[in-house]
């Protein structure tokens, strides 16, 4: 899951949890606050009543009777006065039920014991609970509404901020990792961010890539130097033998010996060439900027191979639309790729056989070029390893050094081309070359 998604989910869920918790706690909270405030209010009222009583004298209220009860003094609350029993506790506040004019009502009642003229009285100040909690529901509703609004606003700002905060990370991933191609040749500018963690990440990646690049450069330098070092002795040997050969008066036996040596040297040279060629492709040394008409390319290659075709009396058919063109390719490499495949198609063919080159292109599928021969095919046991380097296979007594198809494979990978093989031993082989969309023009 993406970090942004995770954060979004977390932010949203945590806030929703807060809302739920608040909704659950709100009635109890509001009730508690209402009662607490009410109790405090009753105490204040009690003080007021006591002041009034002590000013007017208790007699003014009792007027000889034992009890006094009234709504008039405090308007909102009732008060009652009566003599206290012996066991009446001092101040209490309690919720009690009272029957008033045949209605049972719930009151919040403050009882206060006080002494006047050596007589203990109980003063009660009470208020109906329905009046205490009458604003609870609207209050809760308003509180809930305000809360939800605030939560929505904070979620929105959080998301916007998170998105902004994480943008450098996305930028680092896309520019440093996703869109970079080994060996990270071009130096990209630092990502501008005020988050030190991202800065650290970016710097570390740049440093890492720099290290990879320099290691790669070293390897390339090595390859280049090694090639130079290998080629020079081969060169000297070859030239020495050439000089001996031009020495006209050699006896035939010696000439044959030297020729044998030249053949071996030639083989060595070809192997080193092929290895260098592969390493140069892997080192990204061939620009992919050419636009190639496939039909023309295949025709040119077949002209080169004409003798081989004729010697084996092979028939060749080419079915490619003249407009079939690939782009973003290296001419030399694609030439080599097709050359190697066509050369194999000839080499492993049977006398009088056929080679067919044709395209397969229907809407919605990528452009595919097929090279089909009626040759000896490839046994299943070798199928998995035909593209491997130095996989030596013995076919018809011909020694293969496995580098031809290895080069094909390297070139294909370099261009993003997919090559698949289907073969039936004794019947022939079909190489299918699937070009990526980026190489198909139009």
């Amino acid at each position, binding site marked *: 899951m993406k970090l942004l998604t995770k954060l979004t989910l977390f932010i949203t869920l945590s806030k929703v949890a807060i809302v739920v918790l608040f909704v659950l706690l709100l009635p109890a909270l509001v009730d508690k606050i209402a009662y607490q405030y009410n109790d405090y209010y009753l105490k204040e009222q009690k003080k007021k009543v006591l002041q009034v009583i002590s000013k007017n004298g208790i007699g003014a209220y009792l007027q000889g009777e034992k009890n006094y009860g009234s709504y008039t003094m405090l308007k909102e609350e009732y008060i009652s006065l009566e003599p206290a029993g012996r066991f009446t506790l001092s101040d209490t506040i309690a919720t009690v039920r009272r029957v008033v004019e045949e209605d049972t009502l719930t009151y919040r009642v403050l009882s206060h014991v006080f002494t006047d003229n050596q007589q203990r009285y109980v003063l009660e100040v009470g208020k109906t609970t329905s009046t205490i909690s009458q604003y609870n529901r609207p209050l809760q509703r308003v509180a809930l509404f305000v809360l939800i609004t605030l939560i929505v606003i904070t979620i929105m700002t959080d998301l916007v901020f998170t998105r902004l905060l994480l943008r450098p990370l996305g930028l680092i991933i896309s520019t440093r990792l996703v869109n970079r191609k080994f060996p990270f040749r071009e130096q990209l500018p630092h990502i501008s961010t005020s988050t030190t963690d991202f800065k650290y990440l970016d710097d570390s990646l740049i440093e890492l890539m720099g290290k990879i690049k320099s290691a790669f450069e070293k390897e390339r330098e090595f390859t280049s130097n090694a090639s130079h070092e290998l080629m020079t002795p081969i060169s000297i040997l070859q030239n020495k033998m*050439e000089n001996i050969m031009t020495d006209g008066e050699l006896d035939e036996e010696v000439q044959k010996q030297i020729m044998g040596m030249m053949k071996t040297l030639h083989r060595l040279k070809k192997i080193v060439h092929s290895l260098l060629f592969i390493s140069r492709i892997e080192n990204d040394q061939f620009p992919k900027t050419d636009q190639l008409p496939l039909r023309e390319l295949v025709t040119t290659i077949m002209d080169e191979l004409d003798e081989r075709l004729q010697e084996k009396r092979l028939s060749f058919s080419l079915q490619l639309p003249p407009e079939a063109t690939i782009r973003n390719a290296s001419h030399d490499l694609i030439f080599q790729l097709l050359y190697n495949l066509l050369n194999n198609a000839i080499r492993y063919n049977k006398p009088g056989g056929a080679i067919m080159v044709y395209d397969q292109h229907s809407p919605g599928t990528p452009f595919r070029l097929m090279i089909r021969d009626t040759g000896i095919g490839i046994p299943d046991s070798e199928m998995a390893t035909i593209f491997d380097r130095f996989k030596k296979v013995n076919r018809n007594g011909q020694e293969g050094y496995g580098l031809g198809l290895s080069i094909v494979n390297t070139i294909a990978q370099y261009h993003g081309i997919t090559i698949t093989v289907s073969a039936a031993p004794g019947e022939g082989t079909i190489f299918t070359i699937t070009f990526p969309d980026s190489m198909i023009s139009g």
Partner: protein
Amino acid sequence: MKVLIVEDEQAMAAEMEVFLKKAFYLCDLAATAQEGLSKMEENQYDFILLDLGLPDRDGMHVLAEARKNCPDASYIILTARGQLEDRIRGLDLGADDYLAKPFSLLELQSRMQAINRRKSGLNQSVVPLGDFAVDLSRRRVTCSGHEISLSRKEFDLLSYLLLHKNRPLTRMQLSEHIWGNFSDDEADSNYIDVHIKNIRKKLSAHASVEWLQTLRNIGYKIKI
């Protein structure tokens, strides 16, 4: 013709010298860029064979400086394959040709001849060959005025053999010249035979081709 070989690999320079001397070139050797440049100041050269991988100076700079000193010389650049090959091909360095090591001395001489032909004009490029005349520039073979049509590869083979006349050339050397990097060791040797057979057939209709000799188990030779 005077040739300066600027090559730090002494053994290689020596082989080149041996070969070119036999082809009647006068050779000077220089093992460093410094030495080469000072030789250029002292002498005039027709050819300068310049190795780009010299120990003391960057080959590109040496070439630029050399061209200032010896503007009339023809330059052939020698490089290790893969090292600068593509850059050289892509850049117009003012060299007349380049050869990637390892190269065949026969190929070197053939390139030098081609440059000579280009620079000296068309007249000298017709070479007599028995009763035939080979026009190397126009790529034509004639026999007392009759043109004999040869395929591209047939002509290449004939002119290569002619250039290295009186020397045995192996099938491999010939196929390397014709197919270059694409030569296929074993297989192509046979095609050389086919081409030679065709050349003989086409030419012998007009005059004797005794000069084209087959060396059993080795290759071919033009003997004149």
